[in-house]
């Protein structure tokens, strides 16, 4: 990678933009993160280990990351279907559906949380039909997953949409004249072409889900060991004025998220390299 620009560029001001970027990245991302780590480093190591490996904490990691992974995976499937429908078909109300996709972006997360709880609670619109079947949604991990799916959906749809629009019809037509059936075309042509965008969408939805707080706490019920997500546990620690404990849990989240995002990114880079070497 080239850092400096020797040749005059049509857009001037490389120095200024780089400085500006570095400054803001530091001020709003790196410095707070460093403060978080410093805070956690303030306590002695054995206590740090105790805090982050307490059964309650372990249960919350499992729930947070597990539910986020499931939610992001579901988004990948449904988000793809939604984006596909919006790009490929013209139907009355398409514009409306397209606009409504962004709603979870705009809604205060607490509002979606309350709305979901009302719908999925034992006496809610949908909950009352699920309850007799033995499916409890509100106040269980299922409810958490539903909430995380809702808020992550737009990320997948919006990243996949342009990618689907780019899949040339000609590719499908070519595959069809070569004898491929619909499913074969989907598996061998469409999915590989859209995959990088799908992975990006997945990453964004996952990252958002891990950090989500507002919508989850209403529907989760927040029972320790059962339906308590890590961000909620951090808030509890803060309310107990246990700042170091909160910081320790935060560091763990940071580390796991970082590793997972890095892995997905590497996967993507690898995929992209395979797709279009030396354009």
């Amino acid at each position: 990678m080239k850092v400096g620009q020797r040749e005059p560029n049509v857009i001037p001001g490389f120095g200024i933009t780089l400085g500006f970027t570095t400054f803001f990245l530091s001020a709003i991302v790196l410095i707070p993160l460093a403060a978080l780590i410093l805070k956690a480093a303030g306590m002695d190591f054995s206590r740090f280990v105790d805090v982050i490996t307490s059964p309650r904490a372990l249960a919350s990691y499992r729930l947070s990351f597990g539910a986020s992974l499931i939610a992001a995976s579901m988004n990948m499937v449904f988000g793809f279907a939604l984006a596909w429908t919006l790009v490929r078909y013209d139907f009355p109300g398409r514009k409306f559906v397209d606009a409504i996709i962004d709603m979870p972006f705009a809604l205060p997360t607490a509002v979606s949380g309350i709305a979901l709880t009302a719908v999925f609670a034992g006496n809610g619109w949908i909950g009352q039909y699920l309850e007799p079947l033995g499916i409890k949604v509100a106040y269980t991990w299922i409810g958490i997953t539903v909430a995380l799916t809702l808020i992550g959906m737009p990320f997948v749809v919006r990243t996949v949409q342009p990618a689907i629009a780019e899949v040339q019809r000609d590719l499908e037509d070519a595959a069809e004249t070569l004898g491929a059936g619909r499913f074969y075309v989907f598996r061998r042509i469409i999915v590989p072409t859209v995959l990088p965008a799908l992975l990006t969408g997945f990453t964004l939805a996952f990252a958002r889900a891990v950090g989500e707080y507002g919508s989850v706490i209403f529907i989760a019920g927040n029972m320790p060991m059962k339906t308590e997500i890590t961000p909620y546990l951090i808030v509890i620690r803060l309310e107990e004025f246990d700042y170091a404990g909160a910081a320790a849990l935060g560091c763990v989240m940071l580390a796991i998220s970082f590793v997972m995002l890095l892995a997905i990114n590497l996967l993507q880079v690898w995929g992209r390299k395979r797709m279009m070497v030396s354009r």
Partner: protein
Amino acid sequence: MAARFFATRPFMSIALDQVTKRYQDQPVVNDVSIEVGEGEFFVLLGPSGSGKSTLLRAIAGLTGIDHGRISMHGRDVTHVRARDRGVGLVFQNYALFRHMTVADNIEFALRVRRMKRVERVARRKELLKLVALEGLDERLPGQLSGGQQQRVAVARALAHKPQVLLLDEPFGALDAKIREELRRTIREVQRELGITTVLVTHDQEEAFALADTIGVMNHGRLLEVGHPHDLYAQPATRFVATFLGAANLLLARQGADGIRFGATPVTAEASEPMYAGREHEVVAVLRPEEVEVAQTREQLSSDYIARGAVEEIAFTGALERLRVRLLDEPCAAQLLGSGSAAEARVEITRTQPERRGLPLRAGTQVALGARRLHVLPTPISSFLACAPTEAEAEELAREPLLESLSTRMKTRVSVRAIDGLKETPAPLAGVAAIAGGDKAAATVEWLLQHGAAEVLVLPKNAPSPTRVYIHWSDEAVRRATLAVSASLLRHVSAEAVYLGIVPEGSPATGRAAPMRKLLDARVEAQQRHGLEMRTELAIGEAVSEITRNLSAGSAQMLVLGITDITQAVTAYRNLLAAQPGWPVLIVFRQPDVGLRATEHAA
């Protein structure tokens, strides 16, 4: 030959029968029938938007058709899916699978068919050799040049040994040199495999270089099919004459004594006269390379056509291009141009030896001769807008339908005031156009009696028709009506329907004869004029049946062949006066003359 509509001949590799495809009720492919022989290289040539790519997709099975039949090697594949048709398709933008290597791309069709690995590899090597890309198996499409990518696409399309290879503007995205190279490769591959091939292009040079047979399309219709040389030397339509190479279109008069420009007789190859026994206007094609240039008329070794002043000289390597403005002389040829007649210029190309023989500069006056003239067998030469006053005639000439027709036909609309229909007219040339309304019938009668052969009655702001009904009152005028209809329909995207009418109360056993007439008419339209038309048989009184059909939809038009002026004008008076009314093109032939022409043709 009549059997062609009912049985596909076995040696035909691809046969299309009256294929129509509509988008939002507009036909983009309009009643196209084509037969491509085994191993033939067929080029579909046409400007963008002519429907040629849609037709190719229909052959491939990627686009459904609304009407007609497609068969391959005698098998009806109209409703067979693309993947079961056994065709190979090559796209303009290559459409390679970018996430797969060259090897995977080529083997795609083989994998789909679960061919064994060993055989797959062998086939792939064979194909890569065929397109001269050996050793590039493991590259990704992104690592190849455009020309190489298209070669891969060709190899991929051939992998499953299709019976038919279809190419959709395959050279469109390549630069000139690569284009020529690839063109040669495709021609070689096609010859080697002997595979029936259909290629779509808008580039006439490409068509000439590749085709065994060229089919020219415009506005969704297949205008002409033929060997490249025949189409170039003897086009039947204005469009083919001007699209396939450059052409100067000239208005001439054809009489019993031959072809004349003004008063100057010329020799020209002409098909049989459009209207035997009566002098009429025709359109002659003069290729730029067939124009002889000399200083004076006496020095010309070919037929003199006009004097002109050189306006523009361009050097293009092997050839010199001249644009010459014709000087206004009474005997000069009349030139049809895209703009007004005054802007029309004769295009001339001269070889270097010719140029050295008579160097020219802009402004020099020269005499022009025609070494070879070809008269188009088209009955509509030009339009003459007729109205009581000059101003009204001018207004009529600006009618949208008339304007679009004359533009598309690359012909002109002259205006003539026919005051009170009293004066003895100067000879009428071309199709007379008049306004619809109460007086229309009387004007039609007067014009036909004073020498007009075709009259177009135009209601105000009539839209371009989507359906044209064709009817004639007498078999004697059948041939002329069909010729005029064909000429009209080449320039509008409408479907043609021949309306046969049997009087009510005629015995049921008598229906066979009219049915046969219907089918004969259809065969004649197809074979003589390349016009595909539907046929409908109505029972009842002619005028009311026609009016009923015209009223049944919007944007309809009528072509009406008549032999008896007074009777026809009386019968159709109300139809011509109807509000808002329909455009009606009346074709008149005197019965004896018409009959003689029919016999002569037979």
